[in-house]
């Protein structure tokens, strides 16, 4: 690596609000999503799913489906040539159900036909005889009652992670609470879609909307009985992810059908099917007990967090790890006894969603901090300041926070922002909005605060890396850069950012981003707020390697020592431009591939939870101001203010979008978003009945973005996408509590919780 300081005059480099290449296409409806994939002669796949959350399959009769004209294949588990089970962490999920079903919507058979409607009708002609069993839907019993029936033979506890620190569990002030978090959905707009194309070598090419191409490949190939190199994936247009595309949905099914028929097969889920086609956020049952001195300094925390993982493991183990390690929040707590459980039930499978285990815990510990403030007669901000960690502190796992953690100043900053003015008279600004619900009478204002801690990147010893291939050559007499990674653009703006980094590092304005595919090494998942860090780091590192070779080439061709790259030109020690990049390159092509790893992390001790499990921490603080109609139970969030430390701003407008979006998702969890599950059955699988915030529900935001660099991270950056999702929820609920005096132990808060009826 050279020690050249690149002062980048290049347009749209790191730090600029570079425009998104996909932005205009998306807002004009021209962007090609995975559901738009098309090939002449392709078949359409459909999936037969279980209507029951728990049943034995006594028989499956395909006769009617096979007879339907236009149907080319009807497959069951018997047609899966390789491994019958798959899973992102743990292979426990059947490709197609074998003898039993464990959740409503579990795939039993797949059909390929000449038209999507033919395929769906064929599904309806498959006769399945079930022996319906009583579903196991109680996560507490699944966690704690050994006599509860088992969803899987190995037992119902997917992971139990204790945290044990210290031994003093007595204090002058003790506050307790039992909290509940409903099942939130990622609610992405682009349903699960992909196109599988059989290849001449006996393999298959899959074009699919996903979050991590290589982990899909790792799961698909064994089930198809193929070596990984014969299962090639290319990212198709992704319409949002938020964790819901970490697990496979239609990938193996489409490949099976394509290999079976020898024809391309496309599968596109409908909206209702999508609710059964991906995992959701774990619902949580939490008990907390916080002990403190009379002046509000924490002595101990006892806690129990039960996360309902539903029928299959998905990423439950890692979600439990986060809930446990971050379970007391960004606070210094000398004594901790906390147990986090992830369990199997016959409820819908739950896995990754933005915030990943840290969201549920944050609602619990922040609610507790407010109770503690009240018990000690302290301001909610003050009680947080008295306990907040700072650089050098230890979190619950004993890990030292070796990066800036300016929580005290962040809390002061958000508290001191001016408050919005009094109650508006515009209907759109009042609880209930244009439904004329109120005219300002009976409105009570409340203010609340929330703060969260989120680990960035994969944790607990995971070998977390990304790969970037960067190619520099002359095209049309100009230097041009091609950046190739397998990282999934899921709407977060990574395609834009990779080009910004290449422009900054190489000073070349002309940067092309190659489509993400498995022809280059793994980039890891577009999850855990990690791609700017890890893939950004890989692109930066590969660019540095290219730059080094360019300068070697320049030294050789120009017979000149001490050259540097500055402003896209080759310059001498004295700063004189010696040549352009294109002149140095001529017909030569420089291509370098680099892997980038963040600092290694360690597993958590199985009995005490101790260990340096995380590589980076990120923090966001919210202040919520709400107006509540206490008679009608309606909440209008008037303003959300946030202070977030991102280490380094790479793209201001994209960053603000992340904070706005994360905050809105937290608002949804606080006030309306919940998959209603009754007896293991999803009752609201539509965007008419699963409510996400509209623009009328989401208030203007006031943002303060800090740049305290993390010395371990590229550019000093900190992952930014998840932290706002954590803290907006407890801030809003705290504000509603302040307005109503209600305890509000469950989210989402509904009108009846406020009217208390």
């Amino acid at each position, binding site marked *: 690596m050279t020690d050249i300081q690149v002062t980048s005059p290049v347009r749209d480099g790191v730090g600029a609000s570079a425009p998104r290449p996909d932005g205009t296409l998306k807002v004009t409806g021209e962007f090609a999503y995975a559901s738009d994939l098309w090939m002449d002669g392709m078949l359409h796949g459909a999936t037969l799913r279980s*209507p029951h959350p728990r049943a034995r399959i006594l028989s499956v009769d395909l006769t009617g489906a096979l007879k339907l004209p236009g149907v080319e294949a009807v497959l069951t588990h018997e047609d899966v040539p390789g491994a019958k089970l798959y899973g992102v962490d743990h292979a426990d999920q059947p490709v197609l159900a074998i003898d039993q079903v464990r959740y409503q919507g579990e795939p039993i058979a797949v059909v390929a036909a000449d038209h999507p*409607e033919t395929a769906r*009708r064929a599904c309806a002609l498959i006769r399945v005889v079930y022996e319906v069993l009583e579903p196991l839907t109680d996560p507490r019993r699944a966690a704690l009652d050994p006599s509860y029936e088992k969803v899987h033979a190995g037992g119902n506890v997917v992971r139990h992670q204790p945290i044990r620190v210290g031994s003093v569990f007595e204090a002058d002030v003790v506050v307790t609470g039992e909290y509940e978090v409903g099942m939130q959905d990622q609610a992405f707009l682009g349903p699960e879609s992909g196109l599988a194309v059989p290849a001449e070598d006996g393999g298959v090419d899959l074009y699919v909307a996903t979050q991590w191409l290589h982990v899909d490949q790792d799961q698909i190939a064994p089930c198809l009985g193929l070596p990984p190199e014969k299962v090639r994936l290319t990212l198709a247009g992704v319409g949002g992810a938020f964790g819901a595309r970490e697990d496979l949905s239609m990938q193996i099914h489409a490949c099976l059908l394509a290999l079976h028929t020898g024809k391309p097969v496309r599968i596109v889920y*409908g909206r*209702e099917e999508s609710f059964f086609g991906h995992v959701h956020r774990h619902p949580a049952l939490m008990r907390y007990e916080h002990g403190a001195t009379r002046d509000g300094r924490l002595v101990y925390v006892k806690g129990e967090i039960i996360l309902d993982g539903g029928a299959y493991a998905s990423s439950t183990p890692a979600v439990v790890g986060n809930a446990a390690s971050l379970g007391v929040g960004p606070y210094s707590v000398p004594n901790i006894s906390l147990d986090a459980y992830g369990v199997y039930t016959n409820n819908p499978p739950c896995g990754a969603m933005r915030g990943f285990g840290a969201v549920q815990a944050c609602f619990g510990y922040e609610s507790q901090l407010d109770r503690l403030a009240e018990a000690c007669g302290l301001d909610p901000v003050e009680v947080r300041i008295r306990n907040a960690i700072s650089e050098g502190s230890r979190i619950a796992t004993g890990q030292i926070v070796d990066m800036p953690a300016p929580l005290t100043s962040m809390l002061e900053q958000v508290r001191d922002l001016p408050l919005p003015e009094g109650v508006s008279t515009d209907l*759109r600004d009042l609880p*209930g*909005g*244009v*439904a*004329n*619900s*109120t*005219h300002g*009478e*009976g409105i009570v204002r409340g203010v609340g605060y929330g703060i969260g801690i989120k680990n960035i990147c994969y944790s607990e010893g995971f070998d977390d890396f990304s790969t970037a291939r960067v190619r520099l050559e002359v095209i049309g007499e100009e230097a041009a850069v091609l950046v190739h990674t397998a990282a999934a653009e899921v709407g977060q703006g990574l395609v834009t950012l990779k080009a910004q980094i290449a422009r900054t590092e190489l000073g070349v304005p002309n940067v092309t981003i190659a489509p993400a595919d498995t022809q280059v090494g793994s980039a890891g998942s577009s999850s855990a707020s990690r791609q700017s860090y890890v893939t950004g780091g890989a692109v930066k590192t590969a660019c540095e390697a290219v730059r080094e070779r360019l300068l070697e080439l320049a030294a050789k061709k120009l017979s000149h020592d001490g050259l540097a790259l500055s402003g896209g030109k080759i310059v001498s020690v004295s700063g004189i431009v010696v040549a352009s990049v294109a002149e140095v390159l001529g017909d030569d092509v420089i291509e370098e591939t680099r892997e980038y790893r963040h600092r290694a992390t360690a597993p958590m001790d199985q009995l005490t939870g101790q260990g340096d499990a995380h590589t980076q921490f990120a923090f966001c603080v919210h202040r919520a101001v709400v107006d509540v109609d206490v*008679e*009608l*139970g*309606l909440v*209008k969030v008037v303003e959300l203010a946030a202070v977030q430390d991102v280490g380094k701003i790479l793209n201001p407008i994209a960053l603000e979008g992340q904070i706005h979006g994360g905050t809105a998702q937290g608002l949804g969890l606080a*006030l*309306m978003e919940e998959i*209603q599950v*009754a*007896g293991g*059955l999803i*009752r*609201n699988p*539509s965007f*008419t*009945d699963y*409510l996400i*915030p*509209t623009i*009328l*529900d989401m208030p203007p935001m006031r943002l303060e973005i800090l740049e305290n660099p993390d010395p371990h991270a590229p550019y000093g950056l900190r992952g930014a996408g998840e932290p706002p999702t954590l803290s907006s929820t407890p801030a809003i609920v705290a504000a509603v509590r302040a307005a109503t005096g209600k305890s509000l132990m469950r989210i989402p808060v*509904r*009108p*009846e919780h406020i*009217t208390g*009826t």
Partner: protein
Amino acid sequence: MRPFAYERATDVRSAVATLSERPDAVYLGGGTNLVDLMRLGVVSPEMLVDVTRVVDATIEESAGGGLLIGAGVRNGDLTADPLVRGRYPVLAQAVLSGASGQIRNMATVGGNLLQRTRCSYFQDTSKPCNKRRPGSGCPAREGDHRNLAILGHSSSCVATHPSDMAVALAALGAVVHVEGRHGPRTVPMPGLHRLPGDEPDRDTVLEPGDLITAVELPELPFATRSRYRKVRDRASFAFAVVSVAAALDVADGVVRDCRIALGGVAPVPWRAELAESALRGAAATAAEFGRAADIELAQARPLRDNGFKVPLARNVLVGVLTDLAEAR
């Protein structure tokens, strides 16, 4: 979705004749509800008869001093109409509070009256539902029913009627003009929608072939003082948890007359006749409004998880009437 035939009607009579002969055919208006239900497999008609070009789509003054609203008027046009806004603000507000702008621009007055329930078991063809499949059972009674009925339900069905517009029309005492096999007739509101009893599959009193051609609003001068208020789970594009449509005629602090209907609480737009009679001649005070609400809601039979609707309906009703009493 199953295959179906599509026919564009050329006139009302022939459309009625077609549907009278073909029980497997249904009328198509804006399609905002019907097409959804077809996609879900809840209904699977063999034939759609598009009546959007043959039913009247204008709003005009009626001979009786009220308004005659063509069944083909789009919800978006209804809520924007100056006559409606001026004389029957409750109706304009009710329509505006429903659905989204795009849906209101498609949905018709006739179709809105015939919306099917949003009960999740009705929408889910893998589950029993007496309204969808008579005799199959009602899982909502013991299952997910937070937003279902507290009034007028039966052992066979606890669904709610989803329309906001119909609540305002029930309060105003609208008259529905119907063209049927035996010619034109009128059906008063309330009276169009029927309580489930043991035939929950029949939402209305309409007979096969009946086509709603218009809705007539009676002359009701005091309806200039009317209001629709709706409680829902988000600020836009959500069905009512509880709603109230009310018009109030107050003189010298005394209620001379009133019209009240409740939405989101019953299988039909619920005209609150008991509350109305309790209020006529009573003092226009919050206490009296509360007493009237209590009388009406004494009939409520909440389910396990929707008891909150009783006091919520009371609060909304008292709030709306108090607002109207204070309005000048």
